């Protein structure tokens, strides 16, 4: 595997909180990653450390094979679009784009101008006076037009309406297809990005819960619905991650995908299968984890079956 980032045993501790707990992962070259997880899971901390805007407590980070910290050779090839990027008080978007143009060696001014037009960014209004959506759009323009070899987008959609988000996704995909590069996109809108991303990196409570191709992640779990007794027979011996009932009808999500013959047998008993979307899977897995943390091991086993 051709990786641009290697992370080994990375731990980040703030006073009494552990933001990242001994995580290791690789980021492949020229893939779009979805960095997913709940608020406070450690996504922004991970991005900050990878871009040398924060220091690890322990562990090792390599970007293009080097330590990124105060390393201009590495940093000029990275672009980090922060969710809460700070600008000088009197700066306007024109200043921000002019600075970005100087900093990023692969900056495409033509693309930047098209995007400014797409998002209708007021170039001469001070950044302080921009709406949340306009501020996010400034970050999106810089992130895309920089064409940096590795671009980090930390929840770039805040305040953007559905139309503007679609413009972002379409522009990202079109430009990536033409100029392949590595993209890390953190998002809560999993359904919106699930078809864009090639790999999923799920962080929960400072640990990596999933590091899979998006394609494989979609087939990790199955949902089966039907008469409670028949469902129980069908999922016997499987790892159940979610269960809900309405009268005699039960819906169960379990890990794994049954063979065609097993599915046929279950279908013959009137059970219906539904695929589990990436968003559902991630919600279930993180719920199951947080339920497990709050209970003793014996209870959590039972909890996962409830």
């Amino acid at each position: 595997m051709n990786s641009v980032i290697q992370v080994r045993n990375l731990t980040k501790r703030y006073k009494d909180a552990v933001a990242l707990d001994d995580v290791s992962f690789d980021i492949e070259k020229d893939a779009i990653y979805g960095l997913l997880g709940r608020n406070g899971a450690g996504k922004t901390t991970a991005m900050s450390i990878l871009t040398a805007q924060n220091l690890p407590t322990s562990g090792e980070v390599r970007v293009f094979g080097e330590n990124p910290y105060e390393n201009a050779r590495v940093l000029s090839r990275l672009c980090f679009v922060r969710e809460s990027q700070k600008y000088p008080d009197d700066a306007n978007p024109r200043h921000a784009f002019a600075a970005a143009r100087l900093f990023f060696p692969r900056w495409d001014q033509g693309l930047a101008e098209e995007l400014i037009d797409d998002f209708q960014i007021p170039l001469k209004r001070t950044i302080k006076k921009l709406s949340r959506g306009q501020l996010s759009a400034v970050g999106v323009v810089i992130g895309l037009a920089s064409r940096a070899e590795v671009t980090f987008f930390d929840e770039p959609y805040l305040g953007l309406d559905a139309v503007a988000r679609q413009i972002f996704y379409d522009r990202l995909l079109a430009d990536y297809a033409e100029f392949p590069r590595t993209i890390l996109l953190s998002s809560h809108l999993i359904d919106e990005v699930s078809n864009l991303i090639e790999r999923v990196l799920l962080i929960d409570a400072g640990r990596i819960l999933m590091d899979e191709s998006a394609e494989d992640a979609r087939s990790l779990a199955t949902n089966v619905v039907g008469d409670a007794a028949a469902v129980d027979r069908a999922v016997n011996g499987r790892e159940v991650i979610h269960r809900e009932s309405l009268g005699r009808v039960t819906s169960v999500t379990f890990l794994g995908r049954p063979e065609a013959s097993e599915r046929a047998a279950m279908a013959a008993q009137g059970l219906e299968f539904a695929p589990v979307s990436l968003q559902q899977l991630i919600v279930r897995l993180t719920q199951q984890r947080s339920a497990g943390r709050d209970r003793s091991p014996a209870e959590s086993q039972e909890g996962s079956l409830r």
Partner: protein
Amino acid sequence: MDEGKPLFVQIAEQVEESILDGSIAEEAQAPSTNELAVFHRINPATAAKGVNMLVDKGVLYKRRGIGMFVSPGARELLLKERRNDFALRYVQPLLAEAQRIGLGPDDVADLIRTGAGATPAQP
């Protein structure tokens, strides 16, 4: 898109559909991976997987530096495959539902005959 099948399979099936209905002729250029990705709003790697599946199957072939083209005989190949799958994909679910509502195979056959007779009805 139908969530039940892997995305790359759905992409491959859409290209197959265009070949079957003749909208992409044999020896004509097929849509590129990037065109498919942008049109369907999916990751290009996923689109590439779908295209590669069709290359492996002999439906598309690559001309270096130009792009993907529809193989001669691709339409016949796909028709044959679809006919083989017909019983599994359509007839078995049909009979299963018929059984649930108390119709036997003969009843279904009658319905198909009358249905088929009714389809080309006068406008």
